[in-house]
């Protein structure tokens, strides 16, 4: 199963969520948060390293998505005279440069989201983060042996988590509040689209620090007191500050005074946040009115804050509790996770495909060097699917072959085998006429290869046998054939026999028949007989030459006789 880890690093510590599964079906397996001492606006490096090392003893390091703080981001809405992404991507950085007053375009990573189109072009929400800020975050992670595959803004990761929970579909125009220690992120969503993002330097620390100042105690102690009050009042108890109902200060106990200070600071916080909220809503084009505010972050731990905000903002303010929307196994950590885990969850969900804006701040020289890291999970799934697909295909082919063998080939081979074996038996039965190396074993031929090729092997064996037999009988292909001398003999003497009545006698002196030439030397009574014989023998179409000469007296009869020699050239027949 694919695993992704969302890693939120903020000034006060680190939060990690591990999700397992695919985009549609996933489970939240782990949640961990560790506090770290802040040093000059960033977490103490050594403590952070120790915290990350401890977390990643238990978490997968392979697919980690890390956060950047919205408070470190410059966000602007700018128009560009283009509509396609390709064109926008080419110019966005330089268009954004005009709106970045304190840094060079080459020093920032710029990402954008479309917020609207006009006939002249597109309105973009541009996010610019300094490369050194991103680089520092990457170094924090690398020190713990983790290479974040992508990085996104905490506020946008929160959007991803809320969207995955289906709450944006429920309320397409809403505001997401991430009330942190030092800052509060506000994401304005209109008709399901992120229209504005603001990070206000106002967090719950303003309540504790205010209390600390008023009561002359340190911030840590003030925090303890807020937790005590939360324990006494309950997270959902809203105690409005009604000036008319207030008792005189002299009549109050110490605890009541502490509560009053807390209520006062909380009220101040809510008031300031309201101002920022109202200003931002007013700046939204189209005059959209949010139907709901969903809040997350340490602000949820401040008793009565959400209720107070709801009263002040005039819209319902509800906590976003991920454990109510997703399947999770977080025994004992559910409360912490619901309060602080939304951003880390959004990052982890980005790792498995729930990516609200599809932004990644690891760009240019900060891009992940090893592409394999990005692709390996998809690759693992692909090779697994391919493997089983090919396995099934091979199995199917083998099954099909066996079936064909059984149903189609066996009857054909069986019916061909008997005549083949009979001929082979007769062939082998020729005994010493067939050399041992030319003997044939019909069983070996049948089993000497794949079944469907058996008939072909029979054919090949028969062809070899045939060639061998032709060799034995002397008429192998490719050899010049012998014409029996008897054929020539019969042909010549058939003609001579017919002429015999017209010629007194023919006395053959020599008869020479070879494969190339036939020579007949004979004694005839006179020249006329020779001419007759020549006429007759011309019918033998290979007559080439006739020689006639005076020979004198016959040794038998004593008469003068003619000696005649016919030479025939043998022709190829």
């Amino acid at each position: 199963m694919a695993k992704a880890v969302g890693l939120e690093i903020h000034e006060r510590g680190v939060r990690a969520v591990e999700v397992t599964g695919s985009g549609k079906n996933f489970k939240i397996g782990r949640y961990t948060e560790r506090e770290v001492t802040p040093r000059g606006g960033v977490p103490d490096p050594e403590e952070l390293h120790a915290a990350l090392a401890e977390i990643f003893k238990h978490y997968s390091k392979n697919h980690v998505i890390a956060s950047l703080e919205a408070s470190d981001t410059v966000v602007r809405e700018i128009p560009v005279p283009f509509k396609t992404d390709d064109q926008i991507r080419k110019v966005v950085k330089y268009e954004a440069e005009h709106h970045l007053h304190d840094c060079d375009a080459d020093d920032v990573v710029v990402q954008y989201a479309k917020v609207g189109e006009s006939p002249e072009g597109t309105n973009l929400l541009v996010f610019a983060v300094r490369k050194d800020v991103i680089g520092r975050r990457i170094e924090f992670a690398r020190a713990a042996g983790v290479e974040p595959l992508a990085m996104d803004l905490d506020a946008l990761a929160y959007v991803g988590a809320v969207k995955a929970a289906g709450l944006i579909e429920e309320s397409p125009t809403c505001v997401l509040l991430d009330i942190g220690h030092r800052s509060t992120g506000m994401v304005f969503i209109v008709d399901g689209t992120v229209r504005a993002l603001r990070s206000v330097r106002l967090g719950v620390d303003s309540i504790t620090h205010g209390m600390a100042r008023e009561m002359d105690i340190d911030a840590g102690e003030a925090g303890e007191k807020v937790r005590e009050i939360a324990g006494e009042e309950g997270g959902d108890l809203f105690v409005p500050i009604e000036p008319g109902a207030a008792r005189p200060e002299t009549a109050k106990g110490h605890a009541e005074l502490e509560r009053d200070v807390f209520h006062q600071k909380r009220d101040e916080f809510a008031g300031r946040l309201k101002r920022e909220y109202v200003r931002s809503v007013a700046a939204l084009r189209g005059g959209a009115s949010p139907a709901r505010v969903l809040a997350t972050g340490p602000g949820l731990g401040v008793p009565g804050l959400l209720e107070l905000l709801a009263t002040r903002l005039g819209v319902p303010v509800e906590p976003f509790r991920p454990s109510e929307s997703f399947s999770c196994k977080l025994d004992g950590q559910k409360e912490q996770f619901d309060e602080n885990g939304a951003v880390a969850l959004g990052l982890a969900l980005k790792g498995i495909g729930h990516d609200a804006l599809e932004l990644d701040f690891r760009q240019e020289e900060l891009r992940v060097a090893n592409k394999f890291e990005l692709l390996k999970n998809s690759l693992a799934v692909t090779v697994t699917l391919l493997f089983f697909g090919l396995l099934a295909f091979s199995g199917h082919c083998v099954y099909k072959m066996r079936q064909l063998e059984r149903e189609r080939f066996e009857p054909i081979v069986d019916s061909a085998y008997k005549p083949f074996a009979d001929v082979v038996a007769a062939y082998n039965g020729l005994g010493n006429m067939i050399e041992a190396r030319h003997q044939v074993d019909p069983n070996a031929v049948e089993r000497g290869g794949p079944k469907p090729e058996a008939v072909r092997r029979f054919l090949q064996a028969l062809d070899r046998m045939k060639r061998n037999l032709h060799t034995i009988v002397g008429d192998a292909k490719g050899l010049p054939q012998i014409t029996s001398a008897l054929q020539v003999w019969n042909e010549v003497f058939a003609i001579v026999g017919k002429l015999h009545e017209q010629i007194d006698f023919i006395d053959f002196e020599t008869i020479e028949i070879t494969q190339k030439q036939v020579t007949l030397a004979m004694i005839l009574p006179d020249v006329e007989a020779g001419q007759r014989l020549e006429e007759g023998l011309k019918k033998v179409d290979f007559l080439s030459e006739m020689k006639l000469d005076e020979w004198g007296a016959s040794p038998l009869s004593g008469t003068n006789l003619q000696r005649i020699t016919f030479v025939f050239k043998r022709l190829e027949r």
Partner: protein
Amino acid sequence: MTEDPVKLYVIVMGILLLVLSYVAYDSWAQASAYEEAIARAPREADQMKQLASEVKGLVDQIAKSELRDGGERVLIERVEKTMNLSRSRYTSDTVNLGRGVKGHERRFTYEYGQGKASPPMRRGEVVRFCESVERASGGIVKTIELHLRRATGQDQQDPGKTEKVTDDQYKAEIVFGLRVVD
């Protein structure tokens, strides 16, 4: 070795995938070959029957010949004996058929008509002898050459005396043989 289990898995599965791709391709090729083999099987079965019948014909031809009991020479001499012929000379040789032909000619030369032990042969006797040899060999052994020279009747036992012989008697040199593949 990599410590990343996903990387290791991808590498191992990649290798397995390559092997399996080959196996799958081979299976597919075999299945295709099976289908082609099915299409041509009836035609091949017919070809096989025809070829088997040709081979059977050749086997029968050899089986009927008397070559089975020995070589060509044994067959020729058996016929010679049957016809009560006595030769005056016998030679055998092997002749290469020349360039471009992977075969040779086995030649058996029989000479008759030198002296009393081997009287001259009549023309008809020569023809009968040759026919018998060819028939006995099932047409395998053929008469390659015939050289007949009318006998002048010189007696081998008495070279000084010339004996009159009939016109139809010849000294005969008969060459039997066959050509075989090397």
